[in-house]
């Protein structure tokens, strides 16, 4: 199992590499002439460090990767717009996280509104081979996680995937630390049955 990239500042060096490849492969075609201001540079740096981790985080919350990428890209675009006010790469990471969580919530809301209209396509379901590759136990746990209420799911993913502290989770979810605790423990309790089966 590869080591995942934390969504925090100061990610290990390996987290950047795969991304830079991806970024470079693209930027040759896109051109960089107008990409010179401080905000542009910082967004590129933050992208290198955080993009993969944030997309993974959002995918855990949303299931559909392309929608998750949209949520994360929106966060980078609004970071760029706010850069003059923010200025600090440290708070930028927190801003990105909060913004991604916020965007996934909006998407989930729109989605469930759409799902009530029978003409719309159903929610994405993971393909069979993805499940087979990943192992039955992990899939069952992740599926159970996805059936949790959104706040519980967010609290658990931020803690056990992103490895954030309680204070960081509270900031990202814009709730109190007490509320983080209660969402996480209710979420864990709800998952217990599934976890017991595979332990």
């Amino acid at each position, binding site marked *: *199992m*590869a080591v995942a990239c934390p969504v925090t500042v100061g990610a290990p060096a390996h987290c950047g590499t795969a991304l830079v490849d*991806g970024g470079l492969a*693209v930027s040759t075609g*896109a051109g960089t002439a107008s990409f010179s201001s401080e*905000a542009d540079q910082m967004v590129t740096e933050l992208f290198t460090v955080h993009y993969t981790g944030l997309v993974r985080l959002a995918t855990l919350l949303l299931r559909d*990767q392309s929608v998750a990428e949209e949520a994360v890209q929106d966060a980078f675009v609004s970071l760029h*717009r706010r850069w003059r006010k923010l200025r600090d790469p440290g708070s930028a990471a927190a801003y990105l996280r909060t*913004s991604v969580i916020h965007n996934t919530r909006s998407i989930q809301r729109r989605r469930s*509104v759409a799902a009530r209209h029978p003409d719309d396509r159903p929610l994405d379901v993971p393909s069979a081979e993805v499940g087979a590759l990943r192992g039955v136990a992990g899939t069952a746990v992740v599926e159970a996680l996805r059936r949790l209420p959104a706040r519980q799911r967010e609290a658990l993913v931020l803690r056990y995937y992103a490895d954030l502290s309680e204070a960081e989770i509270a900031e990202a979810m814009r709730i109190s630390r007490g509320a983080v605790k209660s969402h996480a423990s209710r979420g864990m309790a709800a998952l217990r049955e599934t976890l017991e089966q595979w332990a």
Partner: protein
Amino acid sequence: MSIDDDRFRRDEDLLRRALHAEADDVLPSLDALSNIRRRTARPPLWRRPVVLGMAAASVTAVAVITASAYVLGDSSDDTTTTGSESSPRPTVVQSPSPSVTEQPGPPTSTETVAPPPETEDPQPENANVPVYYVTETTQGLRLAREFQNTPVPDDVISAAVNAMLAEQAQDPDYQSYWQADTQLRGVEVKNDVIEVDLTGHTDYTFVGNDIAEISVQQLVYTVTAAASVAGEDGGLPVQILVDGKPPRQMWGQLDLSDPIGRAPLVNVWQHVQIDNPQDGAVLGRSVTISGVALAFEAQVNWQAFDDEGNVVDNGFAMTTESSTFAPFTFEVALEPGFYSVVVSESDPTGGAEGPGPMSDTKNFSVE
């Protein structure tokens, strides 16, 4: 260590491994960075067909500020109360602005948890200033407004323009095509015109007409609304200056050499505007939703969604007057949690004809 603790640790470990295994399969797409760059590049590259139902005449020098009964003339427009439950932080408002004193501010930040109340901090002096943004509706780009709680070091108009240029809207559906590196040099209220002097990035000639027109109106509405808040004449037209001189062109192909008045509300405003609560607010269980709408038969429909997207309550509310922009208000009782409320204009055709109803959405939490 107890057996329960062991079990909990084992569960935690299993969950951690399951999440990482799932996440590791996710490889970001290759065009992500170029997508972001394209969207943050200057000048903006938005290309959209001209859909705004705004006649060219609306942005000529002729003052079209007679507009609607609701907005100008009386200052009820942008001095309506806002965010009455949204923040515990009282704010100090510069005089002269008789109708906005002592308003609690809207949440000041979207990237952090609510800051602790600082009731004893005398500076900087903050005020709720009306700031206009642009939102996409079923009838093209329209103006939307927010009250930004922002420092007012000089005058209210400057504060509003600075907020418009530099601050992102609380509401994620509201945006601005103005860039943060367009800067304000100064504002001067004269007898027959309000001059707004800009500098820095002032070349928006590449944008399409619809964006140019709505963006200029965004500035005009922000300036005139702030003027009425400050006790000045909000009915004056606005002369945009660049480094002290009227620009021939700045936005798209619009001629900005003469002053520009407010375009009629009906042409530029979104038909439903929720003023209260603002997006991201933290509220008590009895939530009052208020705003302004141009409503067929004076009726707007509303739905409250919980964070799972379930409708927890819905209903309709009446505006005080039909067929013109008029205030509406309604209350909804909610348990603690996260919610969004959607208010939409009623559609007389039932969706059979026309572009569909406009709506405004606010997300907030109830504690």
